[in-house]
């Protein structure tokens, strides 16, 4: 059973890759060439941009929405502050190690 199943899976994978691989590779290649030509600085911009957008989006939420169900209305219960405090160390790490 073990040998039979392994042999079937291996044959199926090999045949599929030979038949469809080259055609789909040609489709994907132009994108790979373009992305491969971008400077690594764009990677940093994209990663930091993602965190920044998330941070801006969080502050567009109403305070009443993020405080629903909170035991009290103290400022530290504001989850927008929590989200920002979580995002900042991630941004620092990517700024330092992403370059």
């Amino acid at each position, binding site marked *: 059973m073990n040998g039979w199943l392994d042999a079937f899976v291996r044959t199926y994978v090999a045949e*599929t890759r030979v038949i469809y691989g080259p055609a789909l590779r040609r489709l994907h290649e132009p994108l*790979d060439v373009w992305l*491969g030509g971008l400077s690594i600085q764009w990677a940093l911009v994209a990663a930091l941009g993602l965190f920044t957008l998330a941070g801006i989006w969080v502050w567009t939420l109403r305070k009443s929405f993020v405080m629903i169900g909170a035991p009290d209305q103290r400022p530290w219960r504001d989850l927008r502050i929590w989200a920002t405090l979580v995002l900042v*160390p991630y941004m620092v790490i*990517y700024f330092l190690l992403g370059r």
Partner: protein
Amino acid sequence: MDQVTSQLAAIDYTIIVTYMAGVLFIGTFFARYVHTSGDFFLAGRALPFWAIGMSIVVSDIGAIDVVTGSGAAYARGIAQANFDWIGSVPAVLVAAFVFLPYYWRAGVFTIPEFLGRRYNAATQVIHASVLLVFMVANVSMMLWLSAVFLNQVLGWSPETGIWVTAIIVGLYTVTGGLAAVVMTDVMQLVVMFIGTAALLVLSLWEVGGWSGMQATILAQPEMTEDYFRLLLPHGEGTEYPWTGMVFSLGLVMSTAYFVGNQAIMQRALGARTEWDAKAGMIFAGLFKLLIPLLVFVPGMAARAIDPGLAKPDYAVPTLVNTLLPAGLRGLMFAAFFAALMSSVDSYLNSCVTVFTSDLYQKVHRRFTGRLLGEVSGLWLGRALTVVLLVGASAGAPVFGNFQTLYDAIQTLLSLFQGPTLAVLLAGIFWRRATGLGGLAGLTLGVCLTFFLNVLGDSVFPSTSAYLYVAFWSFWFSLIITVLVSLATPAEPAEKLRGLVYGEVLADSDTQALLEARMNGE
């Protein structure tokens, strides 16, 4: 690992056994609070944010991550950390502020349940069935890993290891339900963090801190600065290219994981308030920040200490063997076992929830015309936990024979991420999405994912082809859902009431309707 085994002292064994007994005691303690199915599946909706956050992290980080994650960091460097950093945030924020309030107010307990209400029963049953198969297989696989671990540490036979783990996890999961699972997870996280923190401090001390580690590793042959870079170029042969990390992992895979993974969402839905649910999810994002430091940096330090390991996965065992004194070594093994048990109990509880809510409940209602009672649901949940655990334990040794099956399970688990996220987003935010559209998007998307996974690096430039597969399958499923929806008649407004985002969050009439639906009216 065998070398490590031979160096365990009496105090190490004492710590391991005490830890196991402690988990069992805390877990069974919560049985006294379980009286209904709501208590069992959602911890009576009484969980505080800190327990939810800690439980999410420890359910996510399994023993496999500790060993293979640090092994991958040993081989490839800090880029491995992307899976816990950009692979967690901003996804936890999307889960906390978009999906959780929606699930919470719509009264949804499981992801397939939402798919059933929004699309149709076929989508619910297909998604629930496949999800169940993979979750049970995952529990089996983790039980097998546990058996291997106990065999190496305590010399037990694999069968003994499987059944001892199953009995310990089973006792508190069966009696205490989600509350027991979450509270033992909290203890397990603390043990895991203490054990791995000890390893981090001692390994960095050994290599002269971060700068010492950097200098030693960069002096090694064929080593480049890329080992210490999070974002790597998009190019042929790059294991973790930045495009895959930012666009696929950061946007699609992580979001799908945090909003579509039953084991993750269930903890948050057991919160005592909506605020606790959201806060728990964000709190998990804070803990995820620490995982690479505790797990991956020791793997990199192992590279500085011994660059010639036979396998990268030996990184942590080697450090444990060479750096940790007696006592701490036992704690590290307890941490490893904690990572294992916390994943087994979480998936087990989620399996039972999905089976009861999405499969059994439908059959029961069809034949009796009413919903399962609270007490009947509790006993069904307990019985199913036993049945699933026995089945998973009996099947666990299979994973000792099928290396390819193990790999296949890991790949197949990732098949749903893109398609599930696509149909969830379309269903929640687009009124025009229809039942047939969702069904087609989900099934064809999974088919495409399977196909692209087979093609792998024959099409995509990275050896980690799944990064691209998840990205493209998400867009493919979304397009299919849109096209088929537009080609089929729109759903009646009454069916969509309480299922579309804006209504669920803002309309008080809709809230009354949702409560009536939850009560089976």
